[in-house]
């Protein structure tokens, strides 16, 4: 009797702590809005109290005007509009073209690198997974590679391949392929035996078994690593572009950093982050679409 009363009281009290919380888009939007408001307030306070305040933390208005319009000189005339027509610094057209042109270059490097890395990683991962000793041997190497500060190795690729797009693409492949390879071979190792045994009894063997059965079966498990590979690809291309390349969002970010022009850095960083987040979402959606047969 006494125990039952205690239990009822506990359950009543327990309502203050829910058993599960939920993440909502609204909370993300509100959180981002609060961060922007805090930025603006801090910028205004800093500008009012110090001489160089607006250079250290520019207001959002300054970011949207000076920051954006100051990017015009990064346009090199590659989009069919001549540099003279675009107008250079201070022109909204030139700034837009500069962002589009450089974002396009970076996007191309990420896209090519990511596709090659995923293709290479999956093919090698399947080959490696087929032979257990090879899988164990590769896992030893990848365990060491996982711990390397990969981004710090970006200068190596610039030295090997010059300050070219090739250096960026190869660096992206180097950074991402191992993640995909390891995830693929692990996913194959984790497959339940009946997934491959049942098709074998129906006569499905060899390459057909790997492409028609094993590959679709492991896709849900490698979804996370593929999305993570998207983030790593963007981080890698940024590191690569910051070392000597003369085009791309990484180059723009590094160049604005050299002169500590924060308002321009913010614009480039926002475009870069938006594209990186979009890639993550796209990769996730792509895998979801391919694996829509999942319950």
């Amino acid at each position, binding site marked *: 009797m006494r125990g039952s009363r205690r239990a009822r009281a506990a359950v009543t009290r327990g309502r203050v702590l829910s058993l599960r919380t939920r993440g909502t888009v609204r*909370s993300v939007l509100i*959180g981002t809005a609060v961060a922007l408001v805090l930025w603006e307030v801090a910028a205004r306070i800093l500008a009012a109290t110090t001489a160089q305040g607006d250079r250290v933390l520019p207001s959002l208005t300054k970011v949207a005007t000076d920051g954006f319009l100051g990017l015009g000189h990064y346009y090199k005339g590659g989009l069919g509009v001549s540099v003279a027509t675009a107008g250079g610094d201070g022109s909204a057209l030139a700034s837009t073209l500069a962002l589009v042109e450089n974002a396009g270059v970076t996007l191309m490097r990420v896209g090519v690198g990511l596709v090659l890395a995923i293709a290479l990683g999956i093919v090698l991962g399947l080959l490696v997974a087929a032979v257990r000793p090879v899988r164990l041997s590769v896992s*030893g190497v990848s365990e060491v590679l996982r711990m390397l500060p990969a981004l710090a190795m970006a200068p190596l690729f610039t030295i090997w391949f010059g300050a070219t797009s090739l250096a960026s693409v190869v660096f992206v492949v180097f950074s991402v392929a191992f993640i995909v390879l390891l995830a693929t071979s692990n996913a194959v190792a984790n497959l339940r035996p009946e997934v491959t045994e049942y098709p074998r009894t129906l006569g499905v063997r060899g390459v057909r078994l790997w492409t028609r059965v094993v590959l679709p079966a492991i896709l849900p498990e490698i979804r996370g690593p593929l999305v993570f590979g998207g983030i790593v690809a963007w981080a890698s291309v940024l590191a690569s572009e910051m070392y000597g390349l003369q085009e791309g969002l990484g180059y723009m970010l590094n160049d604005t950093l050299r002169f500590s022009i924060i308002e321009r850095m913010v614009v480039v960083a926002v475009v870069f982050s938006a594209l990186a987040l979009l890639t993550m979402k796209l990769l996730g959606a792509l895998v979801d679409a391919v694996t829509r047969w999942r319950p």
Partner: protein
Amino acid sequence: MSATQLDTAAVSPAVPARTAGGRRRLPRVGLGWRLLGIAVVLVAWQLAALVVDSRGILPSPIEVARDFGFSFFDDAGLRYLGVKTPGYLPNLAYTIGASALAWAIGSVLGAVVGLLSARIQLFRSVSEPLFFVFGAVPALVLAPFFSVWFGQGLENKLVLVAFYCFVSVGLVAQSAAQAFPPSSEEYAATQGLDARARFLHVLVPGTLPVVLAGLRIALATAIAVQTTIELLGSQFGAGRLIALRASQGDLSSIIGLSLALGAIAVALDALLRAIIRGIVRWQ
């Protein structure tokens, strides 16, 4: 590299299997094959270096090891370039020490906020933008801002590395708490445990193995982010030396320092895994 790193191998709690006698045994399955894999890579690298026959393009592992040993305690070249601590050892120690400090601060905060965010909606709403918007921004994008705002000293790196560790461990802790069976907490409630007691005595121990395993991801993240930030501007650290050597085109030093950081990270990871195994022995 972003901190929202997904590494299922590292998150899986490192719990060794039991032998028939009840004693725990270390997971040595395939250790020989793993070592063989590393040996094969080293031999292939040595052969490739012999074929290329140019230190400026591909130094051999032996040359890398020799150069690394030569500059380990002191290096006249680095001294000439104005490096105040011109040996690899003090700079590696600085990078690892700063990473460890930031990792400890960020991980503790991340574990607490991650667990609370899975049970208190207010914490979830506040942490959501931190985890999924700002935490998803690559460290190299935020690093230049921190460099301008906080200078090139220890503070900017400490804040940034701690933030990425916070996100990394926070996400793992939140997922672990969300996946924790509700029946355990419901049963505890019927036994008279209030919300606070359920959190402290049921949820925290119940999710501890996964959260501790999440610390391993954060450790690798901390060292990688710290080194990367040092590349952009620092007075000390292995990242600063890599940047200097890169400007000289010294491949051997870049490879040597990167491998040394990787080797230290692997050793610290093994140590952490052993500590975690001791803590969750009850599991």
